[in-house]
């Protein structure tokens, strides 16, 4: 597992995609930071985090698109499948590498709340707790998105197809909340309950919900498991 993780990490640092996406992400966050915090003089960075949650829909699939598709295209999938390691180790190793890249990107954005800290009179930020909670939510949301897009990418050998199917799936998840709200009733309620984004907004307004934490972890593990099953299934078909 560590082997796979190390290999994926070095591959991320070698390719320009990770740097591009991190740069793009910082620009977006910076822009929102300017509008939401500086221009409107708000000390709450969680407001910005809440707004950029939507952009994960486009950023996460780009992080995960190469993980499985590239192996199939280069024929290196054979190597992993015939090596004395399990598919679970491969999937988890790759997932953790993608998660590390995402985590690094999230860490980069902490420069903004630190700026806010300096701008706030007296140097103390009463919103620190809420910002921290929002970060936890942000990372959990990203973690679950990574797992979903890794699963969708396990169906294809083309990076483009992997990215597109990932974006589409995340868009569906994104709209689940509003669809649920429109429909109302029990079915709408269920949709809303399952929407990862609805739970994320709980975090950004400063309410820490233990059930949501469990939800995200289960969600992530479920899709990782589904990825393993999907890859194992191909052995038999």
């Amino acid at each position, binding site marked *: 597992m560590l*082997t796979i993780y190390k290999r994926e990490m070095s591959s991320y640092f070698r390719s320009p995609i990770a740097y591009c996406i991190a740069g793009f992400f910082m620009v977006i966050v910076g822009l929102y930071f300017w509008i939401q915090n500086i221009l409107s003089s708000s000390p709450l960075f969680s407001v910005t985090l809440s707004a950029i949650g939507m952009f994960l829909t486009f950023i996460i699939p780009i992080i995960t698109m190469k993980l499985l598709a590239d192996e199939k295209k280069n024929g290196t999938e054979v190597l992993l499948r015939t090596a004395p390691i399990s598919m679970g180790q491969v999937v988890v190793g790759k997932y953790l590498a993608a998660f590390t890249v995402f985590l690094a990107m999230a860490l980069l954005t902490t420069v903004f709340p630190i700026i806010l800290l300096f701008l706030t009179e007296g140097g103390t930020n009463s919103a620190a707790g809420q910002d921290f909670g929002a970060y936890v939510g942000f990372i959990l949301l990203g973690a679950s998105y990574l797992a979903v897009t890794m699963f969708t990418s396990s169906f294809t050998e083309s990076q483009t197809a992997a990215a597109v199917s990932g974006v589409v799936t995340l868009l569906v998840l994104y709209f689940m909340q509003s669809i649920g709200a429109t429909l109302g009733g029990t079915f709408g309620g269920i949709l809303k309950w399952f929407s990862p984004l609805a739970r994320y907004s709980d975090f950004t307004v400063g309410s820490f919900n233990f059930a949501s934490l469990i939800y995200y972890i289960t969600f992530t593990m479920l899709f990782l498991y589904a990825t393993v099953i999907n890859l194992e299934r191909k052995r038999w078909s």
Partner: protein
Amino acid sequence: MIEIKNLTKQYGVIKALDDVSFSVKKGEILGFLGPNGAGKSTTMNILTGYISPTSGHAIIDGYDIIENPKEAKKKIGYLPELPPLYLDMTIKEYLNFICDLKGVEQKKRKAQLDDIMYLVKIGDLRGRVIRNLSKGYKQRVGLAQALVGNPEVLILDEPTVGLDPKQIIEIRKLIGALRHEHTIILSTHILSEVNAVCSNVVIINKGKIAASGSVSDFTSAEGTVNKFMISIVGAKPAIQKVLENCPGVRNVSFVRIDKDACIFLVESTRNLDVRRPLFNELSRASLPILELRPVGRTLEEIFIDVVNKDAVVEQ
């Protein structure tokens, strides 16, 4: 060492493998022959655990690849048709990754990698990125990958495809050198390759084993040889007449003229050595023999026979 029992693989309605069984003893080099699409790669993919069979077993040194995949896979080095290379890594990084993957101990690693790189002659290129290597060198890196961890069994799927003649000879030599420490299955559709390196042959056609045995059994399968290539100095009609009248000769066919000599293919009746009468008759007619050589069936002929026979049966 390797045992394959009643292997069947079904892709939808197509049976890629149909009840295939054979075994390879320790130290053997088995040539796995067959036309394209006969099921060679499918068999190898099952044997290495890349895909699973619909039914049947593949057992490596006592470990079933389905029931005991980890142990079985440790015993195998596999070079697939397309070498599984990470193009963005250098040779050294790549082989180190393979060591990690196969769990080679850290302290043994350096010596082992040096050995392997020396053996496949890529030591000077260890810092080069794989993407920039030529096809021949990529193949060598692929072979190096299979050798990491010193597996007892090597499975090589068409290892010389796409290489130039010099590289082909080098790779064959290398495989020959590996025979002392490894049991090898080598798939190919190049028959001279089998003649050059293999001790045993399995011919597979349309998912079924069409023939199997040792290479020497195959090439002299007819028992006594009854075909001779003969090269004689003289005029063609005169030679032909003498040959046809020679006792024991059943059939004479003209092959070609080579400088002042004519070359004929002479077939005798079965179980009769026709060489002495030929010599006597030709010397009586003052026709000097330049060359007289028995012709065994080549693997090519056997292969085509086997493949065609199946086609006829089917019709």
